[in-house]
């Protein structure tokens, strides 16, 4: 990873972290409502993948999708406005946290149905292949999603059609309150790649360089027309599944041991060690992002509510093809 990419990945991780910390705060103070799932602790995966995607590449994401959206270029202000259901949000307040999308910029959407977005990425990859472009599609999903039938169906088709799609399973050890081991028959979800003749690789999802290595290889493979890769990133979510989760399914020790593996602190240590940024510069960066998030919050709070008389708009596209 070159210096500029490292700086980008660092910045993206900070935006994700601080965006979500703020979202949690706004939720707790009743300034936003609904289902808000935080990816705090998992930022390295989204940020690293995002750094290697171009605008024209595609992603699909999940209920835990703020990080993926930001890494694919979403603005914090419009994303925050969407979390508040405001008209300036990415979906004009129609979608909320679980459906942030920006199709023109290649974010085909978060998806509130577990596994629901996986085939959409494969479809975008098929479309790229049909249109003869070198676009690549990435789909993020959780350990839990790998037990849905649609995971299986999509990997099989992506393999036989050699689609330029990369499957990224963020194994954060839990699906809601359920430990992955209790419901998943294999230790490493990556081994499931073999059932489709797809390379499966396990990476440390809290280490940007580990993610980078596997992802670059997958990108190369996809662009060469050799088909998909399944990457399993072992990581951890620090917060509850949902805001208010009593978290009785895991110990404080487990949580704090993972906090010690904070992907941001780890990258910052590397940056200091390799003299990419000083501690001072890092602190300044944090402040910059804090300001960005302040600004996003203000924008979202000040944005208007949607007009109820528009509620039936956009069920259909009435325009010409």
């Amino acid at each position: 990873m070159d210096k500029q990419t490292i700086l980008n990945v660092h910045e993206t991780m900070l935006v994700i972290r601080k965006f979500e910390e703020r979202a949690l705060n706004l939720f707790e103070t009743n300034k936003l409502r609904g289902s808000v799932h935080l990816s705090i602790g998992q930022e390295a995966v989204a940020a690293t993948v995002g750094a290697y995607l171009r605008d024209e590449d595609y992603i699909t994401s999940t209920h835990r999708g703020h990080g993926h959206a930001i890494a694919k270029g979403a603005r914090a202000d419009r994303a925050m406005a969407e979390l508040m259901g405001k008209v300036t949000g990415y979906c004009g307040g129609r979608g909320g946290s679980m459906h942030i999308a920006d199709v023109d910029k290649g974010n085909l959407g978060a998806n509130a149905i577990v596994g629901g977005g996986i085939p959409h990425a494969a479809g975008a990859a098929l479309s790229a292949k049909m249109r003869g472009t070198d676009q690549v599609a990435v789909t993020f999903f959780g350990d839990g999603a790998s037990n849905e039938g649609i995971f299986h169906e999509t990997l099989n088709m992506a393999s036989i059609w050699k689609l330029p799609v990369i499957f990224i399973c963020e194994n954060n050890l839990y699906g809601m309150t359920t430990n992955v081991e209790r419901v998943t028959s294999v230790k490493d979800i990556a081994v499931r790649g073999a059932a489709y003749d797809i390379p499966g690789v396990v990476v440390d999802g809290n280490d940007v360089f580990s993610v980078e290595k596997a992802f670059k290889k997958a990108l190369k493979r996809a662009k060469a027309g050799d088909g998909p890769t399944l990457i399993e990133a072992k990581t951890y979510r620090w917060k509850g599944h949902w805001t208010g989760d009593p978290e009785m399914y895991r110990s404080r020790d487990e949580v704090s041991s993972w906090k010690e593996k904070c992907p941001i602190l780890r990258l910052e240590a590397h940056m200091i060690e390799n003299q990419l940024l000083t501690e001072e510069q890092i602190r300044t960066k944090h402040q910059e992002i804090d300001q960005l998030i302040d600004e996003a919050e203000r924008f979202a709070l000040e944005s208007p509510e949607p007009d109820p008389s528009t509620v039936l708009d956009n069920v259909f596209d009435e325009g010409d093809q």
Partner: protein
Amino acid sequence: MSKKKYAVAIRDVIAEEMRSDERVFVMGEDIGALGGVFGCTRGLQKEFGTLRVLDTPISESGFVGIGIGAALTGMRPVIDFMYLDFVYVAMDQLLNQAAKLRYMYGGRASLPLVIRGQQGVGRGNAGTHSQSIEAFFTHIPGFKVVMPSNAYDAAGLLRTAIRENNPVMFIEHKALYIQTEEVPDDPDFMIPFGQAAVKRSGSDATIVATSLMVSRALEAAERLAEEGIEVEVIDPRTLIPFDIDTVITSVKKTGRALVVHEAHKNNGPGSEIASQIMEKGFRYLDAPVARLGAKACTLPFSLVLENAVVPSVEDIIQSVHEICYH
């Protein structure tokens, strides 16, 4: 009688039936240690163990199918769907399998199977977590369809469902779980399917309302009474079977009817009910039967938009005005 929340009433009936019938078991996502997102299985795994309170992977189609296999072979599964919207991923197992196997096997099999889940608005969960989708199960034959609007009914109907030899869609409402009611302690307290409850009597118009809409209809009725319009409010409690007789008896008296539900109005369950009222009560009708349901768009995330989509007390009042001043 004990005062209980709707969620607790459900939990208690499941527990009692599991105690008295070894064949009853529950399966679903996060039902064990957590006790379900809404607490409807709280404490059960501790009492009955991890086999009879079976936490599943996120594999709805597969575990509904597994429930079917278990039901065909002597067990009585109660499957927890967390959000009923997720049934779409399991629709084949529900509508092509559970609903049809007994019939296709010439009656030589029974499927004692309860599918429980909640639906509706109330938690800002947006389009794929706020739907009301009972109409799928009233259209394809094979399921009994139950929609309790309060804790008392939830208890009595759930016991009937668990003791029933057929697939039952037991449709709860997320906004009702904290609703409280006196519930009989009798461990055999059952409400038969197909018996509507007349929640309020009145002579000027009949409202048929289901689930969360029952309370809105009652509120509208109180406000209409202030203007001198006396509304009869009927909660059918089960849509399959449907107690049309109670509704027609009411319409004979009132000459006017409105059907209110949270499902989409277009081709919603109210279309069937309105059509039946017309078929069986045409000569008593002084006005067309009115229908209220969610507007024809996906449930939006924004609260102001969501409120504009689902019938409100004001919408009900306005609709009653329209049929009364027709």
